[in-house]
């Protein structure tokens, strides 16, 4: 039993340690999110604000190819609102009866319209740097939302020995401290309707939460199912353990 516990403890300590990969940039500070913790949920108001920031700022360069406009109903928008949002974008459809491609307003079932027709165009427009697709960004980086928030608020004057080329900026949380994205946010850039403060810090928090939702839209269902599963297993384990104890007590 002693050996067994020691073994399990060793294993338990091992797993998280080995899962950590090496990184060179500064570790982003841990943030408290509305969705943090085993019971955390998304804050709909923050998600809507974050979407607003994405739509008015980031979407000029970053695509979000895995999302459809209908997914926005998760943020608390009504069907009509989603339809209206989609309708502001234009997609190419077809061919029609005459064999021609045609433009039409986007529908809720359409994927988010990308800012550039392809990666080459995106690079060409951004000094050769590719703005990554944002659908999964919050899961595709270590410390996901903390990292995105940190990058957005981590711009600084270049430190001593860093050499910046034209179009490059100093950011303490990027690997190598160099980023090819100009600071996308500034105070007052996006007009919030709910009275939240319009600072870079607030924008960054909101858009990070929105990006977490985009990457993991089923997080709430997952946690809720998880709580039920854990409670069930705990109760069942308790019963079986008692059964085992009682049964074995008769042995010698």
């Amino acid at each position, binding site marked *: 039993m002693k050996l067994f516990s020691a073994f399990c403890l060793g294993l338990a300590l091992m797993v998280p*340690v080995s*899962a*950590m990969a*090496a990184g060179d940039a500064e570790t982003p500070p841990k943030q408290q999110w509305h969705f943090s913790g085993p019971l955390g949920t998304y804050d709909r108001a923050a998600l809507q604000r974050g979407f607003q920031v994405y739509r008015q700022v980031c979407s000029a360069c970053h695509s979000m190819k895995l999302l459809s406009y209908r997914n926005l109903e998760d943020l608390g928008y009504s069907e009509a609102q989603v339809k209206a949002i989609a309708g502001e974008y234009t997609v190419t459809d077809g061919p029609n009866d005459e064999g021609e491609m045609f433009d039409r307003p986007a529908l809720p079932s359409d994927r988010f319209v990308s800012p550039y027709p392809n990666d080459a165009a995106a690079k060409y427009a951004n000094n050769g740097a590719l703005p990554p697709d944002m659908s999964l960004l919050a899961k*595709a980086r270590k410390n996901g939302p903390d990292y995105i928030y940190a990058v957005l608020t981590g711009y600084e004057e270049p430190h001593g020995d860093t050499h910046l080329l034209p179009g490059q900026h100093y950011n303490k949380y990027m690997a190598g401290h160099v980023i090819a994205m100009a600071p996308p946010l500034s105070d007052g850039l996006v007009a919030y309707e709910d009275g939240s403060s319009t600072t870079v810090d607030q924008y960054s928090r909101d858009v990070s939460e929105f990006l977490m939702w985009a990457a993991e839209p*089923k997080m709430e269902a997952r946690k809720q199912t998880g709580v039920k599963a854990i409670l069930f297993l705990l109760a069942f384990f308790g019963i*079986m*353990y008692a059964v085992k104890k009682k*049964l*074995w007590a008769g042995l010698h």
Partner: protein
Amino acid sequence: MGSGNRQPFDNPVIEWVDSRLPVFTLMNKEYGVFPTPKNFNYFWNFGAIAMVMLILMLVTGITLAMHYAAHTDVAFSSVERIMRDVNFGWLIRYMHMNGASFFFIAVYIHIFRGLYYGSYKQPRELLWMLGVLILLLMMATAFMGYVLPWGQMSFWGATVITNLFSALPVVGPGIVEWLWGGFAVDNPTLNRFFSLHYLLPFVIFAVVFLHVWALHVTGSNNPSGIEPNGPQDTIPFHPYYTMKDTAGLLLFLLIYCIFTFFMPNALGHPDNYIEANPLVTPAHIVPEWYFLPYYAILRAVTFDTNLFLLIGLVCAAYLVAVNLWFTKKPENCPVATTFKIPVLQDIPMKALEPLMAAGAVLFLGIGGMIAFMPDMGMAKMMDAAAPVLVEAKLGGVLAMFGSIAMLFVLPFIDRHPYRSAVFRPWFKVAVLLLTIDFFVLTYVGGKPAEGLYVLVAQAATAYYFAFFLVIIPFLNKFEPRVPLPPSIHQYVLDKKAKKKQKSDDYMNALKPEAAE
């Protein structure tokens, strides 16, 4: 299985079936009344747990395959569709993803149990070897499964690992092209990996069947390592172990569910959420955590093995062989006794020893210098005289596969008559160190191969192989043999008495104070 001496069942339907096909009799014999040592600890849970994980992987895997599309153009987005649009797709996928990790955790603990309690020894050698085969098949399956989502780590992991085969002389590059089905990891590779990833779990299932069959021929080992020799040593499998295994299984599933539901990506790599891109190499290519020990061994061989190093190794091996592998009495030679080979009695092996010792020191010294410090003046001078025989890459591949091969032949290396580490004080230390060594290898396997990490990996690799090739043979010969209890029953009684003695001593120590 003969239905001749079958006990009739009361239930007429069961009796009707059983008299025609005695499945109920079989189940009752193998899982009902099956006499099982009464002193299992919770380590004996993990076979059953591994079985449940295998079934869980099959069920979730088949469900995923209903929605997955194995084409490089759509594989990544088809997985995302499962996560976003398929009903409970996120659940199925996270269960499969974390299930693989927990399957490996269960099997690694299961293997540790076998090592520690000597379950690999006679008469369970074949049972153990089937187990190692299962481990190999699991590794192949998991490796190919990880390629399917077609993320960055899928692609680059597949590229790095398949490229290893190019280190094989002559046939290497051909094998790699054959594996790829082209000149790089690409759509044909993804397609065949999907096909094989679907196939192999069923092969595993078949081997597990043989594994369990073999188990039911020899019966289980137990913590004392002493064979049961009477009804006082055993209890029926049901209800005692069915209930105990269920309790243990539920606890294991509980931890599995904590990962699956609350930190589903903690054991994975974030880069696999970026779609595969042959033009962008990730900063660090790391395999899944359960491959890290072997990956560390692979990368520990950073040096070319030159002629001198090889001669030195042969000399050292000669010394180890003469003094440890082969005992004075040739009938104790493991190879000879296993395969009934006649052994030449009186080769003057001893006489060669001083020569070999000198050879080992000299050649390992010079060869090692050329291999590890190629820039030193001496090494440069000798370089031409010592051609490279095994390049670092090939050496690493050989070491990696060798590490599994060691497990495979372990039953024939370890000739000590006792099984359990409980009665082998020296072996106990060695095997616990091997366990720590495995953790160390896991750790350095996940770190970049530079600086101190390389040295640690090399030292840990050296211990890993020394355990099998030097320490176990040494223990065969020199480990003292303390007397064994006559039976499992007596072992359990002794253990209980010892425990009682301890608590009595404790109480007695307390008593005078209480009296005051």
